[in-house]
Each structure stands twice: as C-alpha cells, then as structure tokens.
C-alpha cells in the first residue's frame, strides 16, 4: 500500500489578492464602540452603570468646584458672597481660604521673604539626585550628591555656614581614618576606624570647632528655627531626609542581612523586623514621647529632628529589604568573579556589587519614598504642622472656623500630583530595567 496522493491537486495562485476593507462591524468608531463598550449584555450593563456613576459624581462635584468663591477674607465673607451670587442654600466651595493661606500650606510659617531658600533647596535636591537616578551622567557629579544634603540643610535652616561644613568634614575625617587604618592594618581596622573616628569627631570636636570658626569668620544667612517649618515643605523635608539618610543605613542593614556572620545577620534581621512590624505612628509617638528618655540627661533637640531620626530608622528597614532584593537579583558569578580577581569584600561590594544592586533597587527606592511621603501626614498626631496639621490650625482661626472640604481637596490634589508623577517615573524606570536586562 503506497501513499495516496489522489486528492492533492496542485494549486498556484496567479495573481495576489489585494488587501480589502474589513466588514463594517470591524472598523472605525463603530468597532471601537462595539468592542470596548457594547460587546455583550454584561458589557452594556457595565457601561451604563459606569456612565451613571460618572454622572452622579461629576454633577455634584463640578458645580461645587467651578462655582467656588475665591475672593473673600473669611468664611462668613464667603457665605455672604455666595448668598448674594447664587441665592441661599447653594453649596459651593470657598476657595478663598486657599487663596488666603496657600503659602502657609506650602511653606508653613517660613518667613515670606525667604521662600526662595526652600525652593532652592528643592532644586539642589534634584541636582543631587540626578546622577543617582540617571546613570548616564558623569560619575564626578556624585560628589555633588554627597554635598547636597549639607547645602540643603544650610539653605533651609540657615545660620552660620560653618555648621554644615564642619559636619561634612566628618565624612572626610572618616575617609582619612579609613585610609590610615587601611595602610596600617588592612581593611578591617580601616573600617572600624572609619566608623569610630568620625563619631568621636562629631561628638567632641565638631561643636567647639563650629563655634570657633563662627566667631572668627561669621559668615551665614538668617537662621530659621524648625518650629517655623510646616506644610508641604515639612512633608518634603521629612520624606527626603528620611530617604536619603536611610539609604546608607539601609544598605548596611541589607548587607548585614546577607552576611553569614551569625551575630551581624541576626541583629540586622531583628532590627528590620522590629521596625517593620510596628506601625509608623507608634514610632512617631516614640519619637515624641520616649526618644528623650534614651538620650543622655539634659540633651534635648527639637521634635522635627527626632521625627527625622525615627523616620530614618523606619525607612532604612524598608530600604534594606529593597536593596536586599537588588543584591539577590545579582548572579552569584559576579561575587565569584570579584573574589577570583582578588578583590576583598569591601572593594567588591563597592566596585561591583552595590553599583549594580542599587541600580536594580532604584524603582523600589522611589516607591518606598512615595509611601514615606504619604506617611509624613501622620506627624499631625504629634503636633507637627504638616498640611493636615495646618488645616486644623487654619480652622482654629476665627476667620476660617468651619471650613472643611476645600483644604482637604487642595491637600489631596497636591499629594496626588506628587505621588502619581513619582509613581509613573518609577514604573518607567522599571520597564527600562527589564528591557535592558533582556
């Protein structure tokens, strides 16, 4: 029995068929509508329900927003204008409170004529963060990133220029100590010295040095106490300070958690788990109620600083987990290649592992920052005047007592804009990373 080819009729197409238009139902707006909105009973129902929801929301919100009153100097004024304009009983927004207090909501009680300084500080922040986020920029700019926190501090708080400079010198002292130790006894001693010497310097030498320099060469700008900080500026400062300060700590914790040294590993794990296991608000109360107990009797620094310390600890636990993810994503071969070339632990971390791991971790870090930024609103519970706290104080003035939604809407929109754009950014970054890794 052989193969039967009986039915196989050779066929050759003489002329190629041209492309033709799809049937009507397959193109244009009709198709779009049919596929996207009305492709079945369920879908039609969903579309109708959605339209209804949109209508209900918009029909209440839009008139309230659009007809809102901008020109009044108190809630009573608003109500009078409203009654005159739209007749009684009409609910419209009283945006006048925003017009009156927007500066306060943004900058707190920061002196008006110095508003340029926080804005400049924000720009410095962006300039400092750029080389971290965009790896294409020259590496030299990273020195600028290192200087940025000190410049920002000086711009925000002002005062003598020597404070930030002398404190920043501590880093140089640390680097020097490391070099000396490294020469003398190797990286281990260098590492220990690099931690201990700057701490001693900051504790005992920095203060007198600042005072001496300030009395010899009093250069400085107007000092602004942290009690004057508030509004979105406060949220930004706490958020940014938290995330930048927590980065080094978070990296150390991540390395500690990866380490096979039992004690270091367990201490890191315990720190991370304890911090993450307890809500931020409890930590904030700790900052406000307890932190002073743990410090030497008599020390007392302002609440904002204490909050920043607590937030830094809090953020560092989260950063540690993000960085750990980055470390884990690196193939083992990278570690081994470093070892095989004779690089020691510190060098292979610094030159090979961390640059790669941090790059992978950036989207996660940005997301942590978004979370932290939103969480800064919790400081209202310990009496700091963040936007929500300020909205309470604004309501406590006789002019604006009784105003409610307008402030929340304003605050909500500002938060939304910030967080949404950062979220988009981190998403784009993530996509770019996955593309590159392919």
């Amino acid at each position, binding site marked *: 029995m052989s193969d039967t080819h009986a039915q196989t009729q050779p066929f050759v197409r003489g002329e190629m068929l041209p492309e033709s238009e799809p049937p009507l139902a397959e193109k244009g707006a009709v198709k779009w509508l049919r596929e996207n909105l009305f*492709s079945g009973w369920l*879908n039609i129902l969903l579309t109708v329900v959605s339209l209804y929801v949109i209508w209900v929301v918009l029909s209440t919100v839009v008139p309230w927003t659009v007809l809102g009153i901008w020109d009044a100097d108190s809630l009573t004024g608003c109500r009078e204008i409203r009654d005159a304009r739209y007749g009684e009983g009409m609910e419209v927004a009283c945006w006048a409170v925003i017009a009156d207090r927007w500066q306060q909501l943004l900058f707190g009680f920061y002196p008006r004529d110095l508003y340029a300084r926080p804005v400049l500080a924000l720009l410095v922040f962006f300039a400092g963060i750029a080389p971290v986020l965009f790896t294409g920029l020259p590496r030299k700019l990273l020195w600028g990133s290192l200087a940025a926190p000190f410049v920002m501090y000086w711009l925000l708080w002002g005062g003598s220029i020597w404070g930030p400079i002398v404190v920043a010198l501590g880093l140089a002292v640390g680097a020097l100590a490391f070099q000396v130790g490294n020469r003398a006894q*190797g990286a281990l001693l260098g590492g220990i010295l690099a931690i201990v010497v700057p701490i001693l310097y900051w504790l005992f030498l920095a203060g007198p040095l600042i005072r001496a320099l300030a009395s010899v060469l009093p250069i400085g700008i107007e000092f602004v106490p942290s009690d004057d900080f508030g509004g979105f500026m406060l949220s930004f400062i706490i958020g940014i300070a938290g995330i930048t300060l927590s980065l080094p700590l978070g990296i150390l914790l991540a390395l500690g958690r990866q380490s096979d040294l039992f004690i*270091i590993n367990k201490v890191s794990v315990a720190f991370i788990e304890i911090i993450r*296991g307890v809500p931020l608000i*409890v930590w904030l109360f700790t900052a406000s109620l307890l932190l002073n107990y*743990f410090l030497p009797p008599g020390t007392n620094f302002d609440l904002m600083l204490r909050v920043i310390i607590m937030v830094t600890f809090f953020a560092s636990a989260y950063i540690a987990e993000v960085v750990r993810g980055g470390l884990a994503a690196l193939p083992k071969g990278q570690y081994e290649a470093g070892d095989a070339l004779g690089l020691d632990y510190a060098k292979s971390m610094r030159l090979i592992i961390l640059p790669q791991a941090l790059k992978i971790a950036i989207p996660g870090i940005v997301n942590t920052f978004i979370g932290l930024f939103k969480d800064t609103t919790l400081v209202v519970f310990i009496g700091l005047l963040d936007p*929500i706290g300020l909205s309470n104080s604004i309501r406590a003035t006789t002019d604006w007592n009784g105003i409610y939604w307008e402030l929340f809407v304003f605050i909500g929109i500002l938060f939304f804009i910030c*967080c949404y754009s950062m*979220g988009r950014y981190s998403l784009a970054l993530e996509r770019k990373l996955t593309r590159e890794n392919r």
Partner: protein
Amino acid sequence: MSAISHEPQAGGFRLSQLIYDTRYRSLTIQVVALILLVLGLSWLVSNTVQNLEALGKDFDFGFLTQPAGYDINQRLIEYDSQMSHGRAALVGILNTLLVALLGCAAATILGVFFGVLRLSKNWLVARLAAVYVEGFRNVPLLLWIIAIFAIMAEGMPQPRDFREGGGASMLVGDSVAVTNRGIYIPNVVFTRSLGGNEVVAPEPEEPDDAGTTGVASGTYGGSRIATGGAGVSTGQDDQDAADARNAQSAAGEDDAAEGEIVPSSSALDWLVVLGLLVLGIIAARMVTAWAKRKQEATGKRPRTLWINLALILVAPAIALFLLGAQFDYPVLGGFNFDGGVHLRNSLIALWFALSLYTGAFVAEIVRGGILAISKGQSEAAFALGLRPNRTMRLIILPQALRVIIPPLISQYLNLTKNSSLAIAVGYMDARSTLGGITINQTGRELEGMLLLGLFYLVLSLVISSLMNVYNNSVKLKER
C-alpha cells in the same frame, strides 16, 4: 619561585590570626560588633534609667490593674469605666483585630473586583477602575480616613430624620437604618436562650415609649454586650432589671410565668449555632471529597451544590428555631435607634477607608498576577476543550494565586498596621486605648508604648510566618 617555601603551620596561635585568618576573622568582627552593640544598648538603658530617676518615675506595669475611668463605645467584650486599664487595652486589641479582619476581607474583595475590572474589555470600566486605583494609591490614607468619616457624617441622614416627615426611611422592611452615626441592623436574640432568659411582666407603658427611660432601654443590654453594644451602659442595668423584677413580684400577685420572656442571647447560644455551622461545613467538604472520588471512579461529578447548601444551613437553622431565635429590630428611641446591632461610623469609616486604600494596592497585585499567566495557558486549555470558567478555575487561578498571595499578605500586614490610624476617627483600637488614653491618664509612656509595640510586632510576625509557610508550600518545581 623555586622550592616550596611556605612556613610550616606553627602550632601556636598568633594574634595576627585574629585579623588575617578567615576562621578567626569572622569571629573577631562579630565580637567587635557584639561589644559595640552591648555598649550601645547599655548606654541607652543607663540613659533611660537616669532620666526616669530624674523625673521621679519608675518602671512599673502596675497601672494595668488600676481602674481606667474612661468609657469605650465599641467593644467586643464586657467593659465599663470601672474596669482596669489592662481590660481596656484588651478591648482595644480586640477592636484592632476586628477592624483588621474586616478590612482584610473587604480589601480582598474590592481588590479582586477592581483588579478584574481593570482588565475588563470595557474601556470605560477599565478607566474607572484605573481612576479608583490611582486615586487611592496616591493620596495619603489619613486623608481618606478623615474624608470618608466626614462624608458619612454629612451624607447620611440623622436618626431624627427617621421620625415622621424627616425624609429618611429604613431599608429592607424597616429593619436596617443607615444613619450618620452608623448603621443599625437587626440582631438575633433567643427566647429560649441557653444562657437563661429573664422574665419581666408586660410593661404598663405602650411599647412605643420604650427606650426613653433607662429601665426599658436597659432590657436589651445583654444582647448589646454580646454583639458590640449599642451604647455605654453604666453597669447598673442588671441592677435595674432586678429592681424591676422585684418591684413586679412584690407589687403583683401575678405568677412570673405569665410575665413576658425577654429574649436575649448568650455566648453559649452562638457557640452552638457556630458549632453546627462548622460541622455543616465539614460535612459539606466530606461530600465534596465524595463527589471527587465519584468523579475519579466514574468520570461523572455529582452535583453537590444543593446538598452542600442544605448541609451547611439546615442544622444551624434548626438550632436557631429551637432556641427561639427572633430578630431584635432597631427601633427609633429617644436620640438614637435602640436594639439591633450598631455598626458605628468610626468603625465603618475606618473599615471603608482601610479597605478602599488597601484594595487599590490589592487590585494592582491581582491584575499583575493574572497578567503574569501567559495567554498561552488559557489557549492551551481552550484547545483541549475546557470551557472558560473551568479554565479560570483549574488553570488560571491556581497559577495566579501563587503570584498574588505573597504580596497580598504583605498588604494584609500593612492594613493591620495602618489600622492604628483609628485615632483619626476615634475608633478605640489598641493604640487609642493602651497607647492613647491610658498613657495620657497614667503618664506611663514607656510601659504603654512598649506593650503596644510588642502587640503589633507579635501580630506582624504571626502574619508573616503564615506567609512563609504558604510560600514554601506552593513553590513551583523547577529544574
């Protein structure tokens, strides 16, 4: 290099080995770290001791047994202002657990719902779902909690609007009242309660007037306490009831049997009902297993839906009947509704806000999980002849769940921790009782915060260890 030149391993131990020998080096580092750690900790402790001394405070948990003095409206166990701070803390802890549990459940439902909607083919619906997700994710939770609390207070009718001509009416056949103080739903009470029923002679007044006096409104006290309570009872209700009874028996020659049985509920009743429910579920699972065996044997799977429903529902229903279950409907009293179960605004607002906020994150997780399952999987299933719903159940869900559950549980963790924002709406959770009023009234910050932190820590660790167990059990086998 010529000959082998290594020095013979000296038997003795040299100090430089501490640094250069890999075996000792790690030990050295750890000992140094340990010393630093101990130094740091002891520094903190000694500071604390000194500071406490300077302030004349001590470290003492005795305050937990002292009377709290404040009232808590929302409580799952009996509590009044004369009970101890410890008891108040327990009430708060249970409240935290309650809202966390409710929140996790609702956030899951919302998240799955909106996650699926975001994948909907309907453009409008997908967009709306995206607006929900982005809106809630990008605005601080605190703002949402406050806003929802305020919307509920302003948007819902007041109890007094339910009076004649007030413009509001109760739902579901006059059994549910949605007010701006919360939602009142019917409560189930028993005329033959296992906890025993009180017998009271018929009230001389018209029932309509009931609720305006302390005695009458106190008669439902038992049910309130068991279900979260409608209000703060001053601890004298039992006394009142007893007085009323005494007065009754003293005044009238009527036999107690002719009196009216006051329906009530006790923990025992609910234990019985719940027990039967659990038994029913176990039986239903056994039926399902039987159906599975049957299918394996014959290929046909018996329909078990109705059998299961019956198994689960019938026994508890009979129990309810035997116990003389009846609804205790909320009725408009003096200022508020009386009777029924009162779900307070603070609870509802916190619950809503937490679940809406977390739900937005869950929606993204669900969406990601479903998208992570390649289209090829469903195509392969279709090509084998499986219907879409079977494909979903047998192919897509089991795979998506592995992707979804770990981040989902960490969202649960976040929700639990975020429930501490209860402070914004005055929901009396652990932070508000133990970490709030108690600390404030007793001045025991250190002890209170320590206990509070410990509570959250233990809770988190329990949840995350559950997660690890799960993760290990579903790991995909790879080469």
